């Protein structure tokens, strides 16, 4: 307990230095600015803004990145409420009641409650990270390669289950991602694999390039298809602060959703995606009058937003303690940390405590800042959203180009981004979800490394995965999760869950 307070104290001392505070502020601001743009989710936002952090020291850079991350999340909710366009999967739920509230002239209250719910969830989730980060790190140090491998298989299994659409298609995408990850030099021999003779592929495919193509460019292409059909809420936003009655009604959903989101966020394999859906369904079941949902129920905004933010934050736990990114956004964070010479994993906390705790403290500060800076700036975001898409997309495109070019100062990255943009577009058209692919790609290299280490230790015997109890349990769990998802009864329930 004293440890916890001492650690958080160290964190706040780091995060509250004027420079770091300014960085967190800039991060939140530009993160929201880009995140507000329709069709741009957190992944594309972070990839685009990554170069902003290059000139800063690692601690400051991570603090700024955390700010960008939360800003992007919140910007996505703003777009969801005002324009009915979700920036990413997790804000789909917010569009249901949030946009309905906006049409009733309560846009301000919807945005206000979203900010308040996010802030509450963020506060709790920060405490959870601080509390269980240290013990989990100790646990992580006991993990051998076989256990790591098992855990990652479990993550991929969950990613398959949580993807929308058919399980088979999700499997295909995960394998596709793993395959993409094998491009580049072999880990041990340095021999080039699957590079098709391109020198630029020798180091493998850059994650930011892949993510930007599949999520940024492909999204632009998809938005271009449908003619301008945005109905930005006209007229006034209304007052921002919810009434006491609104707050009282939202309190229960926020607390429940925070718990739900925090738990799901820790799961490997992007459990956070499920959190807003789960919260919405739960609140609808608990409500006295479920028919209000979908027509502007404040609980339908407060719950999912809290769940979303809690999940978004606890998703840092597997990354910071085990070094395993649970979703694509966290994978980008790995990329960003590596650029700054920080390898995420159990050693970060012991080797670089001020960085670790500073980042955790800045998460909370970032949440607070969002609450403060966004409420007055909503008018500005509304005006930004009224810019026609034919102008927005060329700006987004230019930012994408500059962002990707700046990461490595390499024009070939820009070409690959265009290529993966087209690939992403084809995937969307074929009904294949890119998220599992990205996770497969992210975990691919690490999985291959751990698989080889484990096999080297066991002298080539696959029995090592079954003989070690922890890895056996993890692998069994992964198998069980996928099998359950394929069972007809569960499959039906899953389809229903995603329809809502």
């Amino acid at each position, binding site marked *: 307990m004293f440890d916890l307070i001492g650690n958080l104290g160290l964190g706040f001392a780091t995060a509250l230095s004027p420079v770091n505070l300014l960085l967190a502020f800039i991060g939140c601001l530009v993160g929201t600015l880009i995140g507000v743009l329709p069709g741009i989710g957190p992944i594309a936002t972070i990839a685009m803004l990554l170069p902003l952090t290059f000139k800063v020291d690692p601690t400051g850079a991570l603090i700024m990145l955390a700010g960008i991350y939360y800003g992007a999340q919140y910007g996505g909710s703003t777009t969801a409420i005002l324009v009915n366009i979700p920036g990413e999967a997790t804000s789909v739920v917010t569009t249901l009641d949030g946009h309905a509230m906006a049409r009733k002239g309560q846009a301000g209250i919807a945005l206000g409650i979203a900010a308040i719910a996010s802030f509450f969830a963020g506060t709790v989730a920060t405490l959870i990270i601080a509390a269980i980060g240290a013990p989990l790190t100790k646990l992580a140090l006991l993990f051998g390669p076989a256990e790591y491998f098992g855990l990652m298989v479990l993550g991929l299994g969950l990613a398959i289950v949580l993807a929308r659409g058919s399980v088979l298609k999700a499997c295909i995408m995960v394998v596709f991602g793993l395959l993409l990850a094998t491009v580049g030099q072999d880990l041990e021999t340095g021999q080039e694999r699957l590079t098709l003779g391109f020198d630029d592929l020798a180091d493998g495919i850059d994650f930011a390039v892949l993510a930007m193509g599949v999520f940024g460019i492909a999204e632009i292409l998809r938005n271009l298809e449908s003619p301008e059909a945005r109905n930005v809420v006209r007229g006034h936003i209304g007052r921002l602060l919810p009434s006491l009655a609104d707050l009282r009604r939202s309190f229960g959903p926020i607390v429940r959703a925070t718990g739900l989101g925090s738990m799901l966020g820790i799961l490997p394999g992007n459990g956070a995606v499920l959190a807003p859906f789960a919260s919405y369904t739960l609140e609808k079941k608990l409500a006295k009058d479920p028919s209000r949902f979908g027509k502007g129920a404040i609980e339908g905004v407060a719950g999912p937003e809290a769940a979303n933010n809690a999940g978004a934050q606890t998703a840092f736990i597997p990354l910071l303690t085990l070094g395993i990114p649970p979703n694509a956004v966290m994978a980008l964070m790995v990329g960003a940390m590596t650029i700054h010479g920080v390898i995420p994993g159990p050693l970060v906390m012991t080797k670089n405590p001020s960085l670790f705790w500073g980042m955790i403290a800045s998460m909370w500060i970032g949440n607070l800042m969002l609450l403060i800076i966004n409420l007055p700036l909503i008018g500005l975001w509304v005006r930004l959203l009224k810019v026609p*898409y034919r102008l927005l997309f060329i700006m987004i495109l230019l930012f994408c180009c500059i962002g990707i070019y700046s990461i490595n100062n390499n024009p070939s990255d820009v070409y690959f981004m265009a290529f993966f943009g087209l690939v992403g577009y084809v995937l969307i058209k074929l009904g294949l979800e890119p998220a599992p692919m990205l996770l497969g790609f992210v975990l691919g290299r690490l999985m291959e490394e751990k698989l080889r280490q484990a096999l080297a230790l066991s002298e080539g015997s696959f029995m090592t995965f079954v003989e070690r109890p922890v890895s056996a349990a993890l692998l069994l769990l992964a198998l069980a999760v996928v099998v359950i998802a394929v069972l007809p009864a569960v499959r039906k329930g899953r389809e229903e869950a995603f329809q809502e």
Partner: protein
Amino acid sequence: MVIAVALFAFWQAADLPIGTLGGMGPGMLPKSLAVLFGVLGALLVLGSVFEAGPPLERWSIRGPVFVALAIVAFGLTVRPLGLVVAGPVAIVIAAPASEEVRWVETIVVGVLMTAICVGLFKFALGLPIPLAPWLMGY
């Protein structure tokens, strides 16, 4: 659906030979993954033969072509000609991707955006991105 089947067949055909490129040791994993990939693809094709899936969405050519061209143009020009040229060029090429192009507006936005990006990325952040090497030497 037929298009999807054809695409997957092509996809499988394409990924399998690629899978055998690597050497023995290092190639083991890509190979086995490629096989797995092929098998899953075949399963999907089989499934689509027996079960009618949802109809494919409309494909558009205009957006992808112009956007891809614009990005490639940016990549080609940014090194030799600098951001001052690459920015407007990319924007002007990308503009027709939308069905409602307005040229004057596009050019104004292109120049303005480039100026903002120069200010932001070059001067405020000091990123090593070439501005106009032919004019100023950097």
